[in-house]
């Protein structure tokens, strides 16, 4: 009898300590959300390298009593890297090592297209404030329109950490939907004649320009906007690894192993912020809706400014490359190429669109820096 009693007490104790006893309906729903995101990542291939670990992190975050964020260990270390803005700049180091700024250096005027497409960020900010979000939350939501995951995470952590999960999921989901979202807007806002504009070949860019640019850009932008010095500094450092020609090993590490490792930590840690209390609120649906508005407005802003540049340049700039100003490298540039080729077979816009595309990365970081300086 004593043995049975001891057995029953032990079982009760195990049950009381298990996750099942503290499992809530909210946890169940969030695990289903995580599984849905996993389905989108694996079966539909929506940004699988990012959405996959985010989705799994979401599932992990909804197991009760794991002590992930309260007890020292790997999960707390990952959370530390997110909460202290360590991972986004490291991702930017890898992006810098992968980015060819050549098209931008050959035609610097396309920087303006990268600036114009940032209108999506601020349209969403206005929308968010009208829906009742405070100014910091609205700024964090607006940055979804920049279509740049690391910058969105960087800004959200500082301005609205409780919205990080929803913002990251919206940003990465819409980035994977760029080929579906952008073409109808591009066609709606341009005429057949504009879409057929053929652009002159880009001038060759010397190694001197390629090496000087990351150094000078890091100095200028860091002095102008110190809040984003770590983001832009890492982007330019990575690019210097690539272009210097004497740091190939560092470039290789930055764009492959380091970037992959940090992506695992950043995406899993972002997913782990998606707990039921923060995510299962009406605001999440609003954020997802506002993200779509931001993408549409950013695309429209880039294309409309492209139309202006087309006229001013004497029909030498195809307005379709303006939509690439919403970052999402290189997906948005590919969309410009595809829409341009449909309008006129043989009209290759890809390299021309890469200029505004990489300008969009810088533009989004600048927008984030301005908001941090003004609103934080």
């Amino acid at each position, binding site marked *: 009898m004593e043995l049975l009693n001891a057995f029953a007490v032990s079982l009760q104790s195990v049950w009381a300590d298990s996750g099942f006893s503290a499992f809530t309906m909210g946890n169940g729903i969030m695990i289903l959300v995580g599984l849905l995101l996993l389905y989108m990542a694996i079966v539909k291939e929506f940004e699988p390298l990012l959405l996959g670990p985010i989705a799994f992190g979401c599932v992990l975050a909804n197991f009760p009593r794991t002590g992930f964020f309260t007890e020292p260990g790997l999960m707390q270390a990952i959370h530390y890297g997110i909460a202290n803005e360590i991972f986004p700049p490291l991702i930017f180091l890898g992006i810098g090592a992968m980015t060819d700024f050549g098209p931008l250096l050959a035609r610097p005027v396309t920087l303006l297209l*990268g600036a114009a497409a940032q209108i999506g960020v601020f349209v969403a900010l206005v929308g968010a404030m009208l829906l009742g979000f405070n100014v910091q939350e609205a700024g964090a939501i607006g940055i979804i329109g920049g279509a740049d995951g690391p910058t969105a995470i960087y800004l959200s952590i500082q301005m609205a950490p409780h919205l990080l999960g929803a913002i990251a999921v919206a940003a990465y989901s819409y980035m994977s939907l760029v080929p579906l979202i952008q073409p109808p807007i591009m066609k709606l806002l341009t005429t057949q004649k504009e879409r057929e504009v053929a652009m002159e070949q880009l001038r060759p860019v010397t190694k001197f320009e390629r090496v000087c640019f990351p150094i000078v850009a890091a100095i200028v*932008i860091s002095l102008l906007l110190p809040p984003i010095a770590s983001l832009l500094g890492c982007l330019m450092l990575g690019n210097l690894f690539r272009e210097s020609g004497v740091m190939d090993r560092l470039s290789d590490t930055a764009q492959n192993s380091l970037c992959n490792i940090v992506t695992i930590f950043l995406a899993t840690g972002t997913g782990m912020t998606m707990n039921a209390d923060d995510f299962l609120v009406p605001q999440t649906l609003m954020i997802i809706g506002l993200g779509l508005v931001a993408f549409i407005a950013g695309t429209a802003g880039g294309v409309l400014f492209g139309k202006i540049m087309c006229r001013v340049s004497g029909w030498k700039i195809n307005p379709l490359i303006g939509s690439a100003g919403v970052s999402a490298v290189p997906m948005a540039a590919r969309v410009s190429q595809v829409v341009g080729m449909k309008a006129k077979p043989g009209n290759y816009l890809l390299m021309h669109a890469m200029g505004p595309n990489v300008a969009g990365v810088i533009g989004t970081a600048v*927008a984030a820096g*301005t908001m941090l300086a003004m609103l934080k």
Partner: protein
Amino acid sequence: MSHPVTTNPLIIMLINMTVVFLVLTVLGLVINLIHIIDPTKPKQEKQEEAAPAPAEAAAAPVESAPAAGTAAAEEGISPEIVAVIAAAIASYGYGMEQVRAIRPLPRDAWKNSGRAQMANRG
């Protein structure tokens, strides 16, 4: 967290877009400055910037080209054609003295049609 400068969304939008445009314009100027001071850029480009008279510079080799080029050209090719080819070559920074021969290729409508299709394939 310190207080935001303003909470008016339209003012935030206006100020931020202005700053984004200004910063990227400054970056554009920096890129142009790097290009101007670049000591490694091709010689021809430097000459064009130093003496902005491209029309005269381009015209000179065209005029002198037929004299050197007619020797390399086959019979039946007019001096005007040779002059046009010389101008095209000069625009890439080469002289007619480097041209060994100018002769028409045999024309084949089927081949040309195939090439055009390949070039236009999306």
